C-alpha cells in the first residue's frame, strides 16, 4: 500500500506540473528536498542520541520496571481475561512503558512476546482474542510521554520553543488512549450481543 501512495504522490505531482507550468519548481524541489531530508536525518542524531542515552540509564536504574509495577493493577483491570500473575501481563507492561518513553525498538519484541502469550491463552486460535485487540489499541493510540522525533524536527526548523507542544501532545495522547479503550469495550460488547 505504501508503495502505491509513494508512486501516486510523485506521479500526480509531475503530471500536475505539466499543466500548471510548475515543472521548473518541481525539478528544483527534487534535488533540494533530498538534500533537506539528509540534513534533517543528521540533525535528528543529536536528540536521538541524547534521549536514548538517558533512557539507557533510566532502564538500568529500574525506573521502567518501577513504573510497570505501579501500572500493574490498572492494566489487569483493562485485561480482565488474563489471569493476574500470567506472564502476558508482564510483557504487556514492559511494552507499554517502553513505548511511553519512545523506545520503539525495544517495545516491538516485547509486544510480540505479549501477543504470543495471549495466543497461548486463546488456545492457539487464529482469531484475535479480546485481550489481543485491547493490547493492539493501546499500541496504536501510542501513549507517549515525550515526542522526541517531533521535537527534533522543530529544532531543525528553528522553532522558538521546540518543546512547546509537549503538554498538548500528552493531553491528546491521553484522550486518544481513553477513547480507544472505550471504543474497544463498545465493539467487544457489540460482538457478544450478536452471539447471544
Amino acid at each position, binding site marked *: *500500500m*505504501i508503495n502505491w501512495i509513494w508512486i501516486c*504522490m510523485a506521479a*500526480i*505531482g509531475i503530471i*500536475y*506540473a505539466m499543466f*500548471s507550468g*510548475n515543472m521548473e*519548481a*518541481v525539478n528544483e524541489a*527534487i534535488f*533540494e*528536498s*533530498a538534500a*533537506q*531530508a*539528509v540534513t534533517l*536525518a*543528521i540533525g535528528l*542524531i543529536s*536528540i*536521538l542520541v541524547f534521549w*536514548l*542515552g538517558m533512557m*539507557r*540509564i533510566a*532502564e*538500568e*536504574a*529500574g525506573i521502567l520496571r518501577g513504573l510497570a509495577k505501579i501500572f500493574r493493577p490498572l492494566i489487569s483491570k483493562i485485561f480482565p481475561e488474563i489471569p493476574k500473575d500470567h506472564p502476558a501481563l508482564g510483557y504487556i507492561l514492559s511494552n507499554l512503558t517502553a513505548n511511553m518513553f519512545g523506545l520503539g525498538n525495544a517495545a516491538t519484541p516485547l509486544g510480540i512476546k505479549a501477543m*504470543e502469550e495471549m495466543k497461548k491463552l486463546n488456545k492457539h486460535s*487464529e*482469531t*484475535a482474542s479480546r485481550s*489481543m*485487540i485491547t*493490547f*493492539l489499541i493501546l*499500541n*496504536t*493510540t501510542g501513549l507517549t510521554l*515525550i515526542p522526541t*522525533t517531533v521535537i527534533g*524536527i522543530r529544532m531543525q*526548523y*528553528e*522553532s*522558538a*520553543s521546540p518543546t512547546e*507542544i*509537549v503538554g*498538548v501532545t500528552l*493531553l*491528546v495522547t491521553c*484522550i486518544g*488512549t481513553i477513547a*480507544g479503550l472505550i471504543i*474497544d469495550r463498545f*465493539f467487544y460488547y457489540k460482538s457478544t450481543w450478536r452471539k447471544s
Partner: protein
Amino acid sequence: MMGFISVISIWMIPCFILFIMIAASMKRLPAYDLFVEGGKEGVKTAVSLLPFLVGMITAISILRSSGALDAFVDILSPLLAFIGFPAEVLPLALIRPISGTAALGMTTEIIATYGPDSFIGTIASVMQGSTDTTLYVLTIYFGAIGIKKIRYALQAGLLADLIAILAAVFLVTMMFG
C-alpha cells in the same frame, strides 16, 4: 489550565532528567558509560531513518511544488471550514494511520512550509506526536503470531485515531489559535 500545560511542557524534560540522575546515583550506576552506550543506538536509529526520509520528503515536495497539494487544500478548505478543521493538515491526518515514515515526511514538509511555530505547524507536530501508525502495528503484531481473523481491531484502531486527530485540532485551536 492553559498556563499549567505550558509550564508542564517546559519543566517536564529537565525534571525527568534530574530524576534519572538521582535514581542513577542512588543505585551507584556508571551513568555516563550507560549514556554513551545507549546513545550509540540513537546514531543507528537516525541513520536508518535517512533513506525513508529522503524518499518520502522528495515525493511530498514534488506534490507541493507542482501546486497539486495546494489545489487539493483549496478545494477542501470551504468544506472543512464548517467544523474548524484546517485543510492544510488533512493530508497528514489521512496518512498518519497508514505509514509512519510517510507521516514523518509529511510533518517535516508541513513544518518546513508553514513554520514550526505557526498554527498549522503546531497542529501537525501534535498530530504526529500523539498517535502511532495503526496499520503498521496491526500488521507487525498480528502477522508475527499468525492471526487470520482480526475481528473489530481495524475499525476500533482507526476510530481511536480519528478522535485523537480531532482532539489535536480542537485543543491546539483553543490554546494557540
